């Protein structure tokens, strides 16, 4: 399987976006690259940008490997991609408003009702509840992959609490420090206005009862969460308090922060805690991370939660397979971004095909995340394939399957020198009361192992800076 390379295309040509970078790479000695990489690592370690790997007792804090060679997109490439992202996120929000409201798309047979109603992410508490300003998914991370010069596929929609945006910003920061000469050679669109856009988005969705300068806070599960660095980074950049569940208190359906000067009312909560843990009075009763009564305050219209509760039903992998129809139904337009062809194992015919072709397919668990409940057929051994075969037979409705895509590659600095490695891209799309915004680029994740297609940081993936050239 020959993958499209973002620098050299399908063969020996040099794609224009990479012109200057290629020249620079050819001139830079390997020792320089190695030195810069170790400087970058030192930078990340000093600022404490680490992530936790669950089940890894040895070191609970690790660095995500950073690759110093940027991934470059031209302005026209980005423009088209951005239009597709806006369309997709618009549809996601309309879909959510519909399934928790009039349910037109279910009545029209766009998606089997069963898939929504039986989904544990379809939060019954949200049925017939009008979210502030009609926005459900304020922050979305849409994972896209590229297969040729013109085609991007959406691999996954992340509509709950997508992470990684701090890496997008810190990657740029370290590149600016270490490679000023590269920035002199390129006109790279900035990403450092992301926090401003996020803050504007959060302010725009404050409840109507809130003062004109609403109090916003970021709710984190705490410092042992794998994305804690990001939570504290964002709170800092936004200039809002970083709170844990125990810092908040609900009284008479109003949420307050405990401060040294007594309780202070909160209007908007950017929450990075999953639905299940956010309110022990409504969801999991054993949650110590959440805030008892917060759902009551939310439903009384006294506080806005971003993202809204129950957005998980939109990014479920089983629902994903219907996204092209969902986009068309709600926007009336043809989808700009394609979906990866998906076999719904709940359909017997599809499952039969999947069972016959496991070694060629990627099988994903519905409701799974982080690449743990996933089989990459071409790279799996017999035992792994058999395990999935058993799972698929036992509960086919729990899985979908997709052909392995030839993800595009980018030049990456690895032990053997500069070599192509597979990448994906997670752009971040913000939806507020005043529309949608999206900073150019996003987080490029790279599978550092030769030939590997798994880019998750928990599975040995790294990241790169992503450049959108402004000219």
């Amino acid at each position, binding site marked *: 399987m020959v993958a499209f390379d973002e620098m050299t295309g399908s063969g020996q040509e040099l794609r224009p976006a990479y012109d200057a970078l290629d020249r620079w790479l050819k001139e830079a000695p390997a020792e320089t690259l190695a030195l810069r990489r170790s400087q970058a690592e030192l930078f990340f370690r000093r600022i404490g940008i680490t992530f936790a790997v669950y089940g890894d007792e040895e070191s609970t804090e690790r660095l995500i490997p950073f690759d110093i060679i940027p991934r470059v997109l031209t302005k026209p490439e980005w423009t088209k991609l951005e239009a597709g992202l806006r369309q997709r996120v618009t549809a996601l929000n309309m879909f959510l408003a519909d399934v928790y409201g009039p349910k037109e798309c279910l009545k029209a047979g766009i998606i089997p009702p069963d898939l929504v*109603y039986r989904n544990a992410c*379809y939060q019954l508490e949200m049925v017939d509840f009008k979210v502030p300003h009609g926005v459900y998914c304020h922050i979305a991370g849409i994972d896209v992959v590229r297969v040729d010069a013109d085609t991007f596929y959406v691999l996954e929609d992340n509509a709950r609490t997508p992470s990684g945006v701090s890496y997008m910003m810190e990657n740029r920061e370290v590149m600016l420090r270490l490679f000023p000469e590269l920035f002199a050679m390129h006109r790279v669109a900035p990403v450092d206005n992301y926090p401003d856009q996020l803050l504007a988005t959060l302010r725009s969705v404050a409840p109507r009862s809130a003062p004109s300068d609403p109090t916003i806070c970021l709710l984190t599960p705490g410092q042992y969460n794998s994305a804690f660095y990001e939570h504290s980074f964002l709170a800092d950049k936004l200039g809002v308090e970083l709170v844990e569940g125990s810092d908040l208190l609900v009284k008479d359906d109003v949420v307050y922060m405990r401060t040294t000067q007594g309780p202070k009312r909160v209007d908007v909560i950017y929450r990075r805690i999953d639905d299940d843990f956010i309110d022990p009075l409504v969801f999991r009763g054993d949650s110590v991370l959440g805030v008892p009564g917060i759902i*009551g305050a939310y439903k009384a219209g006294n506080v806005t939660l971003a993202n809204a509760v129950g957005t998980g039903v939109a990014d479920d992998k089983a629902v994903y397979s219907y996204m092209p129809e969902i986009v068309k139904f709600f926007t009336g337009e043809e989808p700009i971004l394609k979906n990866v062809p998906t076999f719904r194992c709940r359909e017997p015919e599809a499952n039969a095909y999947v069972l016959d072709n496991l070694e060629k397919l990627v099988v994903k668990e519905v409701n799974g995340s982080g690449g743990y409940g996933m089989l990459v057929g071409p790279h799996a051994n017999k035992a792994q394939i058999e395990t999935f075969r058993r799972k698929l037979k036992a509960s086919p409705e729990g899985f979908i399957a997709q052909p392995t895509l030839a993800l595009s590659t980018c030049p990456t600095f690895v032990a053997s020198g500069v070599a192509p490695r597979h990448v994906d891209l997670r752009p971040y799309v913000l939806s507020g009361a005043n529309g949608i915004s999206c900073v150019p680029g996003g987080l490029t994740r790279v599978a550092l192992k030769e030939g590997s297609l798994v880019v998750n940081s928990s599975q040995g993936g790294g990241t790169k800076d992503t450049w959108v050239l402004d000219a």
Partner: protein
Amino acid sequence: MRIRISHTISYEYAEPARHIAQILRLTPRDHDGQHVMSWRIEPSIDGRLRASQDAHGNIVHTFYADGPISALGIKVDGLIETVDLAGVIRGGLERVPCDVYRRDTLLTAQDDALRAFTDEATAGAGTPLSQMHALMAAVHERMTCLDASGHTGVGAPAAFAAGEAIAQDIAHVFMACARHLGQPARYVSGYVARSDDLPLGSGAHAWAEVYLDGYGWIGFDSANGLCPIDTHVRVAVGLDFADAAPVRGSRQGGGGENLNVLVTAQEAGSRQVNQ
């Protein structure tokens, strides 16, 4: 039958609590089988009690109180008129599509043993209705009902494996089996009045309801081995116990807690019997 219900829940805290928040599903609604004549909920301390409705249509009270609180009592008194409709529920409020109740939850998870048991129990039954009756009989036969005081819930698979469980888990077992057969099933919390027809005593109780095409929701009380009659008072429904629990609460401070529950459900006008 006219049933008088008195339900007292008392907490004592080792140290005074600073703040208490509770969600109470303690108020029944009217439907064809029951008519609420009077009902009141009274907390023993000052606080804010707000009524609302949850996703399933249950009447929910949210109670907030500020400390220091060393003891809290919630007292429920009510009078309700019931008629025997052989377990069929009509004229109630249905807010969510019945497909929702085909969802598996932590407490109603299926395992191989439950699936095999269900398939065997319902093998001879022709219609879905007769399948459910066969299932209720089989669960009643298999499971011994334990007294709720002194035991806690463990969820369907563990309860089934143990062969004995409190009423709420017997309902979970039945629901897991019904959902395995593809039937929407939900949890009901409520009360039963003393009656010669019931093998178990009176008081707080839990059973299940299944949605059958052509009939609607029908109650199945596997712990008693019969469909609910006019002795049964429905208070709240949900996906499982956690979803329909009479009280869910949280508090700050307070240390350890001592909980006492006293329930009486009697036919009104009948002689008081001390429990």
